């Protein structure tokens, strides 16, 4: 870790202004960037500590949505009664991530910006197009059991490690920003991206922008949402695969459905194809299976991660089935 300067940001505008300096990076909870600095993956010259900014409020919006300040700790967000009742998938996803210690420190904004845990990204002696564009991808033919089965590119097979992000794409969250040009917002769907030929870009966050809040828009179906995560051990591990789902079944027919997958792609994966097939279909295991197969038809597993295809398929069916039975 090379020496760096440190500044506490007094207000958001000046924090964004500081980011114009070369080698500047924001520091919030630090649970990912400090880790990466120790590994030499990132080496900022200036850390702009934003934790003093007043971005910790969880406020109810007039329409029943919720705006969450970007510095809200994961544990606080997961414990919020409004979040738990209106967006249970969000709370469940948060609580399935990391450990209690990390959740106490990690922030909402930082969670959205956390970097892949691909072993080749975090080892600076390996080729990684995300860490060093043009260097190659050692993961594709290497240890990739945890990596992507959907939407990967020849340049990158990394996965987004966030559980929360899967729930956020499920509920069509919006990300509020302060950019050098002023306040802005973007849909969480625009925020995350696939690697394509530019895997060095994790997200479409404009350069120098600060995430100030995330809005969970009011949504009746989100009250019926859930999140199920599968990992090698029972706790404190990144997902091998996860499913966030919301389901509205009436009279045996799927009125509405949302489905998103984690640990399968460079971005949290909204399963639009499956959703399209399910809307209006009978809420049966057969429908769920066909929908999952439709979504996973695009899967291109690597040598050692093909297990994720049946895993996600079964999770889809199992979660939707459980929600259907619960709605009886």
């Amino acid at each position, binding site marked *: *870790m090379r*020496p*760096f*300067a*440190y500044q*506490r940001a007094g207000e958001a505008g000046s924090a964004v202004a500081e980011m114009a300096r070369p080698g500047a990076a924001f*520091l919030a909870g*630090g*649970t990912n960037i*400090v*880790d990466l*600095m*120790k590994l030499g993956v990132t080496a900022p010259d200036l*850390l702009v*500590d934003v*934790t003093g900014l007043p971005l910790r409020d969880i406020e109810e919006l007039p329409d029943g949505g919720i705006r969450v300040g970007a510095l809200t700790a994961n*544990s606080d967000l997961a*414990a919020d*009664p409004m979040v*738990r009742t209106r967006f249970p998938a969000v709370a469940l996803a948060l609580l399935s991530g*990391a*450990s*209690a*210690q*990390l959740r*106490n*420190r990690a922030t909402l904004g930082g969670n959205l910006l956390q970097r892949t845990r691909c072993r080749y990204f975090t080892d600076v002696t390996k080729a990684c197009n995300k860490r060093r564009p043009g260097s190659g991808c050692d993961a594709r033919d290497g240890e990739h059991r945890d990596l992507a089965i959907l939407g990967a590119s020849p340049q990158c097979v990394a996965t987004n490690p966030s559980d929360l992000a899967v729930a956020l794409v499920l509920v069509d969250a919006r990300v509020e920003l302060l950019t050098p040009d002023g306040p802005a917002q973007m849909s969480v769907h625009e925020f995350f991206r696939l690697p394509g030929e530019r895997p060095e870009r994790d997200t479409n966050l404009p350069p120098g922008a600060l995430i100030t809040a995330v809005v969970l828009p009011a949504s009746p179906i989100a009250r019926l949402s859930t999140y199920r995560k599968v990992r090698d051990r*029972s*706790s*404190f591990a990144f997902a091998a695969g996860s499913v966030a789902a919301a389901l509205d079944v009436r009279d045996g027919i799927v009125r509405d459905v949302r489905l998103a997958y984690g640990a399968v792609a460079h971005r949290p994966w909204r399963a639009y194809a499956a959703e399209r097939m399910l809307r209006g279909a009978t809420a049966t295991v057969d429908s769920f299976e066909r929908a999952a197969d439709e979504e996973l038809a695009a899967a291109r597993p690597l040598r050692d991660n093909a297990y994720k295809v049946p895993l996600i398929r079964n999770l889809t069916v199992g979660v939707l089935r459980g929600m259907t039975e619960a709605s009886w």
Partner: protein
Amino acid sequence: MESQFTSDVMLSVNGHPQQLRTDNRATLLDVLREQLQLPGTKKGCDHGQCGACTVLLDGRRVNSCLILAVTCQDAEVTTVEGLSSRTATHTAAPPDERPALHPMQEAFVAYDAMQCGFCTPGQICSAVGMLEEALGEASAEQGVTLDEHEIRERMSGNLCRCGAYTNIVAAIQSSIGVAAR
């Protein structure tokens, strides 16, 4: 060291104010261990993957290895060394004038909830933090019950390679029983 790479920080550690000049790169863990001579907090992985470095920061359990000391201005830190002296317990001090143990420390002794002892300071700080969290949730009327399953999940951020989990859970359960009396 050029001054732009160091900072002055005021914080409180185990109730004692500390004025430090710290390398911006230094973690809270390294400052506790190397500058403040509090080696009870352990470095098991230095990457937030094991929990051995768990301390209470403003009352919440955190991994001190991932926290830069420079960010701890005005913070209150409690380490395992501070637990024993921090809390007045119902138990009389041992005869040889050792400070009274925190009830969680007593429970770990009573249930042999340790072997090599390296993860133990982190386990104990984590367990104390966990009980605080559960109390907070209970007061927010979320109906938390710290049953065996819930304790296991909530303590999963603290690895123990000796495999003392069975006894750690028993110790925490007994400590809850004591607290409830």
